[in-house]
C-alpha cells in the first residue's frame, strides 16, 4: 500500500511537470465537444418548402403565416402546381404543401379537408423530419381552429424528387387517427441524441490516450526495466498509473458536463451523483483500456495511433451514438455488447434525459463494471514482467 502511494505520487509529479500535455488533455476534449456539438446536428433549422394555396381564404392564409412564423421553415409561395413541382425537382424546396380550394368549408362542416404534403425523399432523414415538423405545426393549427375535427394530412413521399402522385387523394382513414406523443424529447432536439454519444467518445479517447502514452514512455526511456527490478508488482503499477489519471479525468468530466448543460442545454432529469459516479466508472474503464494497449505497444507513437484511430471508430459507430444499434445485423449487435460506450451512452440517456430510476440502468452499470474488470485482468495478464 505504501509502495502504491509512492508510485501515485511519482505519477502526479509527471503530470504536474508537464503542464503543456496537461493543458492539451483538458483543452482537447473541450474543443472536440464544442466542434462536434455544433456540427453533428440532424434537425432542420431552415428548410425551404413550397406552399400552393388554392383556397386563398382567411384560414388558409393564417395557416401559411403560421408556417412562415416558425423558425424552421422558409416558405416560398407557388402559384401553380407545376411551378411547385419544378421547385421540388430542382431541389429548391424539400416539400410542397397544397391547400385545397374548399379547405375551410369542409373543415367547418366536419368533413375531411384536402391538404397534400409532397416530400422529397431522396434524403430520407430530412423528409421524415420535415414530415414530423410540418405535421406537428399543422396539428397545432388544426386543434386551435377546428377543435372537434380530425386531422387532414395526406402524405406523399416521392422518390428522387419525382413528384408523380400515385393515388391523388389517398385520405387518412376517418375512423382511427394515431396521434404520436413524443416523450422525453418532445422537440426532437438532436443534441439529446448526439451529446451523450459525444461525451462517451471524447472521454474514451482522452483517457485511453493518457494511460497508454504514460506507460509506453516508461518503456521507451528504459525506466520500465528499473521498475521491474523492484518490489513493485504489476497490480501496483496498474493502479498507480490509473489513479492519478482518474483525477485528471474528473476534471475532464466536470468540463464536459458543464458544456453539455450550459452550451448545449442538456437536461438533467435524474441524479447528479449517479451521473458523476457512472462517468468516473466509464473513465476508469477507458484508462484501463489505455493500459492494456500500452502492454502491447512498444512505442508512444504506436500507442497514440491505436488509442486515437483504433478506438475512434468502434466508439462512434458501435455505441448507438449515430446509428441505432437495433438497425444493425445481429452479429454486429453482438459486437456492440463489448463496447463500453454503448452501455455508458445508454446510462447517460437514462440519467440525463429520462430521469429513470436506477433499476432501469442498473444492468448497464453492472455490465460496465464487468467489462472494466475484464480489461484490468487482461492488462495484468499481458503485462510483461520479463523480456521475451
Amino acid at each position, binding site marked *: 500500500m*505504501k*509502495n502504491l502511494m*509512492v*508510485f501515485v*505520487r*511519482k505519477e502526479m*509529479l*509527471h503530470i504536474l*511537470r*508537464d503542464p503543456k500535455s496537461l493543458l492539451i488533455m483538458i483543452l482537447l476534449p473541450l474543443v472536440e465537444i464544442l466542434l462536434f456539438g455544433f456540427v453533428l446536428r440532424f434537425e432542420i433549422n431552415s428548410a425551404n418548402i413550397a406552399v400552393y394555396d388554392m383556397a386563398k381564404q382567411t384560414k388558409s392564409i393564417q395557416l401559411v403565416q403560421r408556417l412562415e412564423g416558425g423558425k424552421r421553415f422558409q416558405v416560398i409561395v407557388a402559384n401553380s402546381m407545376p411551378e411547385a413541382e419544378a421547385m421540388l425537382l430542382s431541389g429548391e424546396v424539400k416539400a410542397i404543401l397544397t391547400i385545397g380550394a374548399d379547405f375551410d368549408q369542409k373543415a367547418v362542416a366536419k368533413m375531411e379537408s384536402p391538404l397534400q404534403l409532397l416530400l422529397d425523399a431522396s434524403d430520407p432523414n430530412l423528409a421524415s423530419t420535415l414530415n414530423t415538423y410540418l405535421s406537428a405545426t399543422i396539428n397545432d393549427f388544426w386543434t386551435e381552429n377546428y377543435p372537434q375535427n380530425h386531422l387532414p394530412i395526406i402524405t406523399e413521399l416521392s422518390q428522387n424528387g419525382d413528384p408523380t402522385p400515385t393515388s391523388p387523394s389517398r385520405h387518412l382513414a376517418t375512423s382511427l387517427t394515431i396521434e404520436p406523443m413524443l416523450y422525453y424529447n418532445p422537440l426532437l432536439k438532436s443534441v439529446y441524441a448526439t451529446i451523450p454519444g459525444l461525451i462517451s467518445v471524447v472521454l474514451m479517447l482522452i483517457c485511453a490516450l493518457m494511460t497508454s502514452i504514460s506507460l509506453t514512455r516508461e518503456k521507451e*526511456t*528504459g*525506466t520500465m*526495466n*528499473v*521498475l*521491474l*527490478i*523492484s*518490489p*513493485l*508488482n504489476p497490480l501496483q503499477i496498474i493502479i498507480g498509473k490509473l489513479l492519478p489519471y482518474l483525477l485528471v479525468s474528473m476534471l475532464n468530466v466536470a468540463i464536459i458536463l458543464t458544456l453539455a448543460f450550459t452550451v448545449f442545454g442538456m437536461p438533467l432529469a435524474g441524479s447528479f451523483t449517479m451521473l458523476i459516479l457512472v462517468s468516473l466508472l466509464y473513465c476508469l474503464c477507458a484508462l484501463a483500456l489505455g493500459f492494456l494497449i500500452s502492454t502491447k505497444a512498444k512505442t508512444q507513437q504506436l500507442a497514440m495511433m491505436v488509442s486515437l484511430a483504433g478506438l475512434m471508430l468502434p466508439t462512434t459507430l458501435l455505441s448507438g451514438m449515430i446509428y441505432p444499434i437495433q438497425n444493425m445485423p445481429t452479429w454486429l449487435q453482438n459486437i456492440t455488447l463489448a463496447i463500453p460506450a454503448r452501455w455508458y451512452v445508454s446510462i447517460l440517456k437514462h440519467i440525463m434525459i429520462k430521469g429513470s430510476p436506477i433499476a432501469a440502468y442498473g444492468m448497464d452499470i453492472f455490465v460496465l463494471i464487468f467489462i472494466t474488470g475484464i480489461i484490468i485482468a487482461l492488462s495484468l495478464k499481458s503485462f510483461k*514482467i*520479463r*523480456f*521475451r
Partner: protein
Amino acid sequence: MQSFISAKNLSKSYGDTLALDDVSFQVYPNEIVGFIGPDGSGKSTLFQILTTLLIPDSGSATIAGFDTGRDFPKIRSSIGYMPGRFSLYPDLSVEENLRFFANIFGSSIEENYEMIKGVYTLLAPFAKRKAGALSGGMKQKLALCCALIHKPLVLFLDEPTTGVDAVSRTEFWDNLVQIRDGGIPIVVSTPYMDEATRCDRVAMIYGGKIMQMDTPEYIIANYQGSLLAIRTQERYLAKQLLSQIKGIDSVFTFGDAIHISLPERTEPIIDEIDAVLQRELSSTYSITEILPNFEDCFLQFMRQKSHE
C-alpha cells in the same frame, strides 16, 4: 569460501544466434567481478538473466541462495541494478528520483544516507535540478545512488561507464571500491579493457563464452610469449614488412607504436626483425621489449578462440 552468486551452464540463444554458451562462474562476497568483452559478446544477456529479466534456455543461477527463475520477486526486491542506458525520470529532480527509488523499496534517503554519502556529496549541489539536465557523469552518479539507496545485497552495473569521460570514469571506479569495502559485492560489465585492473576478478567474455576468469594480475602474468614495441615514422611500411616474417604471432598497431607478439622470446627472431627494418626503413626506429597489458591478454585469448 561460500559463493554469493553461482551460475551453472547458462545458455541463451535468440533464434539462430547463440548469445550465451554454457557459462558457469561464481561470485564471492566482497569482490568486484568484471565481465569484459566487446559489444555483442553476451554481457547484457548475462546481466538480464542474473537480474531475472530473462529466463535462460538452459542452466540456472542463484543469488544469495535464491533461484533467478523461481524466486525472482525476492531477488528483485533485494538487488541493485543500474542499466547501461540512463534510465531515470528526466522530468523529476535529482532528489525526487532518489526519494522515489528509496521509497519503492520501503526505505528512505535519510535511513540509508551512509550508503551513498561518498557519491552523493558531489551531486548534492544539484539536488533540485531535473535529472534530464545533468551532465553524463552526473547522471551516472545519480543512477548509482538510485541503485544503492535501498542497501542492496549485491550491485549489478551493466556498462556503467559507457559514454562517460575519463575523469568521471576514474572517480566512478573509486566509488565502486568504496562500496565493495562497505560490504556489497559488485558485478560490473564493461567494454573498456583498461578498467579490468580495477576489478578483483575479471571474466573475459567473447562469443557468448567465458574465455578465462581470474584476477587481472594473474591473467597478465600468464601472458604467453613476449611482446615487442616498434616505434618508427614509417608505421605502415614497417607493418607490411613485419607481417611477412615467419614466427610472429601477430602484428598490430597500438597507439603510436607497432606491437608484435612472439610465441616465445628468442634472439634469432629479434635479430631477423632488426635486420629487415635496418635494410628497408629509411628513418630511425627502436625495438623495445614491453610488458603486456590486459588488452594484449584479451586479444591473445580472442585470437586463440578464433583459431579453434
